[in-house]
């Protein structure tokens, strides 16, 4: 079982990212859960969403305390929240950042494996909006094998209809531009 924690800000679509990955994994025949950090959401406030993906039935309703993967949608969040909190040994933090690896490590003190992409730039160029929730899924695909691309694209089409194309393009670009460190 792989556990994912997504950090975003209220209104950035972190819950939608979680939903897309879980529905795609389920369509692929796997077991999955996606859920928000329960409670009222305020636009702009730091929020989290969670995903579990497994080959066997998932029998827990705990929150995710020790993620294998952390996906951060907003470049300003690593400076505010400890995004690597509880990360499993060998886990990976995936950041939306324009910084280099050494800058990230120095500024935020993250020691784990890293994947980085400037998703804000990609989203702004491809979608015309700095909303990175679908773009960052490209980084998630590149850095982990948690879900396959085809079912994820199908989930995007179902969710966004006509707007899916642009989101798919942004996602593809993020896949190509994501840098994964050792």
């Amino acid at each position: 079982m792989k556990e994912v924690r997504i950090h975003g800000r209220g209104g950035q679509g972190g819950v939608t990212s979680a939903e897309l990955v879980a529905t795609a994994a389920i369509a692929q025949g796997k077991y999955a859960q996606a859920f928000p950090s329960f409670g009222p959401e305020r636009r702009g406030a730091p929020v989290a969403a969670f995903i579990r993906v497994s080959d066997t039935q998932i029998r827990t309703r705990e929150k995710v305390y020790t993620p294998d993967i952390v996906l951060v949608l907003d470049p300003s969040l690593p400076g505010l929240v400890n995004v690597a909190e509880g990360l499993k040994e060998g886990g990976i933090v995936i950041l939306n950042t324009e910084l280099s690896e050494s800058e990230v490590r120095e500024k935020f003190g993250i020691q784990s494996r890293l994947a980085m992409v400037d998703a804000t730039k990609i989203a702004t160029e491809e979608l015309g909006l700095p909303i990175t929730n679908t773009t960052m899924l490209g980084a998630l695909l590149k850095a982990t094998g948690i879900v396959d691309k085809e079912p994820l694209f199908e989930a995007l089409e179902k969710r966004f209809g006509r707007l899916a194309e642009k989101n798919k393009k942004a996602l593809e670009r993020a896949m190509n531009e994501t840098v994964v460190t050792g």
Partner: protein
Amino acid sequence: MSKRVGIEVSIAIAEAVGLARAEVIPAYPITPQTHIVEHLSEMVANGELDAEFIPVESEHAAMSCCCGSSAAGARTFTSSSAQGLSLMSEILYIPSTMRLPMVMVVANRAMSAPISIWNDHQDIMVQRDIGWIQTFAENGQEAVDLTLHAFRVAEDRNVSLPFIVNIDGFTLSHVIEPIELPDQEDVDKFLPPFKPRYKLDPRRPITMGPVGIPEVYTEAKVAHDMAMRKAKRYILKAWDEFAEIFGRKYNPVESYRTEDAEILLVTMGSISETAMTAVDAMRDDGQKVGLLRIRLWRPFPSQEFRKAIGKAKVLAVVDRCLPPGAVCGPVGAEIRSLLYKIPGAPKIFSFVAGLGGRDVTVARFKEIVDKARQFAKKRPRELYEVIGVREK
């Protein structure tokens, strides 16, 4: 063919209500039930569901409309939570003794104060004695299946009682997970059209809800109680038929790794899944621990529960409700009184956990089992223990 989809549990419940062909849905939105009724109102507005959606002005009105709708012979559904459910309270006792079938999904939530929108079972324990049949779902699939089952049983002419399906707010209602949505054809096979024993019909006038003078009231209440006891047979029968059509079998009490178990956890609702994982971990450790999950809460499955205990020496009953000043939590109290003075009955310890959205983790279950083991050796000073409460 039924289809397996990744879907939010609330949406799946609404789809199930649609598959059940509900005819009247009076509802008032309240967190965390909101997505269920929002989706139903969309289905009605989009013409996908041929039903009356009545956006009432309060939960009190919602339940009043439900009574009228059921009395007029319509398949009736509503949903609520917490303070909203309590606002229905005045009406909730009415359809049950009046034998008006209807189905309500309660997305369980804590009672304020302090204000809490998060999950526990305090809202439904307030309504423990309203005389409705009540089940608890452990996961999204069960939420869907138990909703269909509820219509079938409630409307069975041998039962004719209102029915609550409890689902944990947020921890179930807001989770996306794989659920098999059944086929319309199969649901139609399982759930025939509602044919009430009596209904309000101007061509054949009757009076529903007359005064019950002291010379009648006791008999009316005993008749209701007897109807509840008799209902168990039809609840089980409907689960058997459900299994035949849909391939999933449900029981009033489910046992998990209870063979040779010395200590049994007792749970209700979605924490049961985490409890299973905890039992697996403790079994791996060589501890003889098992789990009993209560699915049918009213009528209480006394026989099945007694049988399920087997040779266990200790029961650790987990309540999601803290009734201030009571002897212990309501589930603990129920089981203590069920087993009182029964020769060879296990020792029963009552725990309160997971109030107002506090997570009940695998570690908490281990803690509960450890405490129960200690208490079995040295009697605890208190009749129950609140798990994970901070002192300072």
